[in-house]
């Protein structure tokens, strides 16, 4: 297998494509750097000049508002120029290939490509074909990875729980289709979380999930017991009824997070969700808006984490 394509020859972050394969020290460094930026985002003048003169291209082949916006804010707070491209509606519709689109933007002097794509692995392909001074950040590819989401989840957990070493983290719902779950699982296992659980019906748990280092539960009662962190995954509308699930109602009854089910977790448990939420499907409003919820702080932390990643890949030189 080739060298981890995310790291340069000295083991520094060249691209951020996946949390998998990143050493523990590097993950900690990203979280620490993010922490140093958290202060910036609370100041009156929310800008640092780390990426002044650099161009960040937000290249979204798949729709997204929240992730794109937080990347844009993060880049602007680092003083970079941001160009947003809704590629889904332009070049690919005209038949231009992914690599041609990237080559064209590269000719416009890009420094960072933030790539979201519906196909797993697309950012790897881009990273293989950009110039040495260009960096690729994966903003979500197919079912594969969403590393900045995973990092902001890790940041949130560390913020509230201080330490990873004694935690039980339960990830609930559609793990099969979730890039968020995959990224978080790799992060948690790398950082030494002793108990990572996934909970869902068999139809939504991928083959050989145990191979990722998790324990698989099909019952919320067992899976949530004494959990310190509960991460609810979004259930896509198109998966709510069909061969995977009979109905949103039945899913909610068995796997939706209610106050009653949350009571099985530890009293100081935190509840997370990558958004956007389906209230009344995977999570009840009483929980989403309740005292255990850290869903909105996740969004805030997401900006600091993305600033950290962008400054680490491109701010060195």
């Amino acid at each position, binding site marked *: 297998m080739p060298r981890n394509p995310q790291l340069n020859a000295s083991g520094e972050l060249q691209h951020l494509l996946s949390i998998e394969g990143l050493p523990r020290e590097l993950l900690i460094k990203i979280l620490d750097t993010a922490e140093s930026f958290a202060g910036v985002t609370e100041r009156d003048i929310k800008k640092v000049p780390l990426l002044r003169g650099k161009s960040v291209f937000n290249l979204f082949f798949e729709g997204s508002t929240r992730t794109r916006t937080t990347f844009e804010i993060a880049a602007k707070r680092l003083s970079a120029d941001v160009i947003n491209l809704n590629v889904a509606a332009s070049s690919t519709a005209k038949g231009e290939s992914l690599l041609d689109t990237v080559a064209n933007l590269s000719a416009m002097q890009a420094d960072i490509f933030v790539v979201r794509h519906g196909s*797993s692995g*697309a950012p790897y*392909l881009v990273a293989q074909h950009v110039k040495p001074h260009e960096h690729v950040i994966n903003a979500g590819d197919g079912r594969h990875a969403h590393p900045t989401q995973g990092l902001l989840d890790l940041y949130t957990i560390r913020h509230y729980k201080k330490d990873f070493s004694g935690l039980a983290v339960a990830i609930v719902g559609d793990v099969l289709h979730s890039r968020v779950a995959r990224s978080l699982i790799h992060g948690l296992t790398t950082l030494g979380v002793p108990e990572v659980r996934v909970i869902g019906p068999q139809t939504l748990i991928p*083959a050989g999930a145990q191979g*990722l280092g998790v324990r698989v539960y099909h019952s919320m009662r067992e899976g949530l017991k004494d959990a310190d962190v509960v991460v609810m995954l979004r259930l896509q509308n198109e998966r709510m009824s069909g061969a995977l699930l009979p109905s949103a109602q039945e899913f909610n009854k068995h796997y939706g997070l209610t106050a009653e089910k949350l009571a099985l977790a530890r009293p100081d448990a935190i509840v997370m969700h990558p958004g956007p939420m389906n209230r009344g499907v995977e999570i009840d409003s009483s929980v989403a808006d309740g005292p255990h919820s850290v869903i909105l702080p996740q969004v805030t932390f997401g900006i600091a984490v993305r600033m950290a990643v962008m400054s680490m890949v491109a701010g060195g030189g």
Partner: protein
Amino acid sequence: MKLLVKGARVVDPASGRDGPGDVAVVDGRIVASMPGKPDRVLDAKGLVVAPGLIDLAARLREPGYEYKATLESEMDAAVAGGVTSLACPPDTDPPLDEPGLVDMLRRRAKALERARVYPVGALTVKLEGRQLTEMAELAEAGCVAFSQANAPVADTEVLWRALQYAATFGFPVWLRAEDPWLAKGGVAHDGDVATRLGLAGIPAFAETVALATLLELVRATGARVHVCRLSSAAGVALLRRARHDGLPVTCDVGVHHVHLSEMDLGFFDAQCRLQPPLRSARDRDALAAGLADGTIDCIVSDHTPVDEDAKLLPFAEAEPGATGLELLLPLTLKWGVQAKLTLAQTLARVTSAPAGVLGVDSGRIAPGAPADLVMFDPQAPFRVDARALRSQGKNSPFLGLQLAGRVRATVVAGKVVYET
């Protein structure tokens, strides 16, 4: 025309012969000894002479996909790889479902005077799995068997009737075993790697479910079925049992599947996007073992030239397939060494065994047999280099790797069609 291949190590898998000798050829056929003086002598000192390779699955891309490859380029690749006979699947555009197309393909191939081409006709019109093709007409035009290539027959009744109809005339049917519903949308083996990489999976039971159905239909109809591109350990086990029960089935495996597994996908290497998908290391080992113990009869290249742009895409969007004609010999030799087989046993999988499936009298070195021969150096290094490949398809998971086994000359019907 009299040709003498002199001073060779003659390996004939059909008879088990392996020893020094000459091969004499008169008017396109092998003779016991050379009458008089030969017109041409090929010095085969230090080289193996064996029957030319017979590849049961090589896509020539004509008609319809000339931008991926042409008959010229792929027939060149065939003889450069020591392949003297090949069967081409019907997944051209349009598919080989009309006698006119088959006739044209055969004429074009014959005019090139390279390898012998045996077209495999479409089992159903447009490969759609609904209406049977005019099999008898197609057979008259030269089709040696009927197949769906990678297209399914989703309707089990159509499959049953197709086998019944083919059995009526004694036509062989070559089919891949893959349940189209279980495979739908999948691009990789449904296992650890697909789970990690977030790729849609095709479970191994997509193969066994379809294979169980197919074997029951063989039992019911008595059709002669050749199972193409087996991919899983469970599939090998099912087939072993069926053969033990005496069912008239034969079977092949793609040469890539004998060597590679899902682990080789690495970081989304689109060269490893194949049909069927590369499965676990356990599956790969079972395929190699099934081949060694005779459960699997033949190794095929499953040659699929793909243009470069179609591979420069995210894994799931990349076109499946690998170029294979020029790698078939070195990769087969590599398997034989790993399986600790003799050269004759190894080469049987690409000579005498596929000749048996095709029902042709080539694939052996014996007086009277067609003089289709390959001369090769089994030890000479063969670096898989995109520029050196004659096939228009440069798509290979083995690019840049070094293999052993170089073809020095290829003879078809007594004519030297390739030498280096």
